[in-house]
């Protein structure tokens, strides 16, 4: 079983991945939780759910979240794939999933997922990571704690500097 880094109360830790990542070239196995492409989800999602199985959906960077939005209540995991770490489309997709479509399930970063981008991913609402650079939760704990303050609001709802200043001014 694949391991992935998951945020537990904001703290990165290893967890066993209960979802089997099924490539499009292979048939869906007869049992267990599966992570499938959006195309396969559209074909088989309903049947899998009817069989009481949990289903996760992989979205490529050019597959818009808008198409998945109507089905989010039937999805246990959304895995957004980074083709390269420099390809930032999935940050916007993550923000929309969380803030616009109210998705509260697991939001997983897969593909070219590197430690140095972790803090941006967390701020955009990702809570699970399959690192491509061999890093471990301890590395992620350090990287995520590096910046004590933030300048802007994001999905993580950390209090931005302008709000801290406002609060300080009101308290004074």
């Amino acid at each position, binding site marked *: 079983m694949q391991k992935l880094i998951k945020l537990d109360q904001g703290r990165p830790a290893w967890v066993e991945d209960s979802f089997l990542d099924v490539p499009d070239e292979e048939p869906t196995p007869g049992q267990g939780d599966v992570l499938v492409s959006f195309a396969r989800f559209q074909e088989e999602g309903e049947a899998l759910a009817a069989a009481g199985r949990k289903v996760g959906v992989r979205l490529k960077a050019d597959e*818009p979240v808008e198409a998945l939005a109507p089905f989010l209540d039937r999805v246990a995991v959304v895995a957004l794939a980074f083709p390269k*770490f*420099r*390809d*930032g*489309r999935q*940050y*916007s*997709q993550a*923000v929309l999933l969380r*803030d*616009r479509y109210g998705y509260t399930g697991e939001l997983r970063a897969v593909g070219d997922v590197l430690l*140095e*981008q972790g*803090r*941006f*991913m967390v*701020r*955009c609402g990702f809570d699970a990571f399959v690192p491509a650079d061999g890093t471990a939760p301890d590395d992620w704990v350090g990287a995520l704690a*590096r*910046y*004590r*303050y*933030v*300048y*802007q*609001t*994001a999905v993580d709802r950390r209090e931005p*500097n*302008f709000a*801290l*200043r*406002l609060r300080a*001014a009101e308290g004074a």
Partner: protein
Amino acid sequence: MYRYDALDAEMLADRTAEFRTQVGRRVAGELTEEQFKPLRLMNGLYLQLHAYMLRIAIPYGTLTSRKLHRLAHISRVYSRGYGHFTTRCNLQLHWIKLKDTPDILDLLAEVGLHSIQTSGNCIRNITADPYAGANAEEVDDPRVWSETIRQWSTFHPEFSFLPRKFKIAVGAAPDDRTAARIYDIGLKLRRNREGQLGFEVMVGGGLGRTPYLAPTIREFLPTKDLLSYLAAILRVYNRYGRRDNIWKARIKILVASLGAEQFARQVEAEWKTMTQSGEAARIDAPEAEVARIRRAFGTTPFKDLPAVSEAFEAAKAADPAFARFVRHNVLPHKVPGYAIVTISLKAPGEVPGDCSSDQMDAIADLAERYSFDEARNHFEQNLVLPHVALDDLPAVYAELERIGLATPNIGLATDIIACPGLDYCTLANARAIPIAQDIARRFADPAVAEEVGELRIKISGCINACGQHHVGHIGILGVDKKGEEFYQLTLGGSGLEDARLGEILGPALPGPRVAEAVDVLVDTYMKERAEGERFVDTFRRIGLAPFKAAVYAEAH
């Protein structure tokens, strides 16, 4: 001048600590160059032909004497005693050693400077009108909004991995002193009929191999909505901008391929959804925060001075050289008795934009003594003392003359913009600096340059157009022809309020013929010009043909 509070300072401290760790790992061999590259690029550290180059942000071009002294110190100790001011409000230091960079960043952070987002596909340092707070025409201080954008865009989680780099300019006067239409986003502060303050929003300008001037996608955006509207633009770009081809990845290509109207509709639709969902309200800076930023800039304690200074008038009458300097480098100030002084970094024979450490120190002293501690970086690679009392102009001029920076040529043929070119840059096809020096020598007599009048010459050493040749009255582009340096000339461009892209004159010329061709172009203009016409006005009136005939007739 915006004063950093404790939070701003902590942000910088965390950044420099992070980079020190990363450099340590690289020096120890724990990181390969390939792994290190994206990390160093996030701190403006480039690996160039001979060594590392560090690009330091000068946020919206504003400097205090303390900051400028610090830049002088760093370039003296860690580079070779000079720095290069760019067209985008940055200072570039060559010959930097990797192991020194964490110390340099610490020294910068102590005075509120940094190299954050001076490279990479993120929102870069903001350019603002260099005469902000000093010119009478501005409707509001663009620095307040530039700082608001700076904070919002710093380490932005959604917009740090855009298809390509992203540059924003903020102007506030009818005269454009930012080249707003060649920016990814150009913002111009204005008031609507009801007297409310807002921005004209221009999107999708840029030069490079496919130059575009930014169309206006919104005539008036209330200031309170600034950040959420920027977020809507960036979200559309981040999602739909091309990523398959680095040469097609700037937002200008997306805007041009959709058409400005369709692009604007997509932005407006996204922004409307953000507004309705409450997201926009979370993004936009609260009024109290903008007011705090405004206060943090402080007010300049101008004195009540007479509008006319006798000492100044007497000095002008006594010294023709000073009078010439005043004609070209001194502009009226919004406050009676004061003036704006532009310091040319284009002395004939020197490298455009270069400034020695000693000169930086001297300018910092001038700023402290005569300009309320402020200096600015002008996008045309010059520096500005924004608030000089008329009474003090003779003393300022004398000191500038002493340090070799009293060149009276702002806007003239010798005030040339040039990129570093093949002498420094790995991308360049041809040298830019020697061409600039050649041309400047031809107009070295200030009387000749003055007679020719306003003439903006811009030189790029390759198609990436860092010298902004497309928007030069005369633009010069270096190209490689079978290993030889050739130069293609364009005429009639402008990046300012009369923005236009230049037209190609004809076949490219070999390097030694460029300065001569510029001479011929200028002669043609002098023959043809009508009363009060600048070079570019005459060109736009009579067209390319007479200029082309003159230059290529000479070749036979």
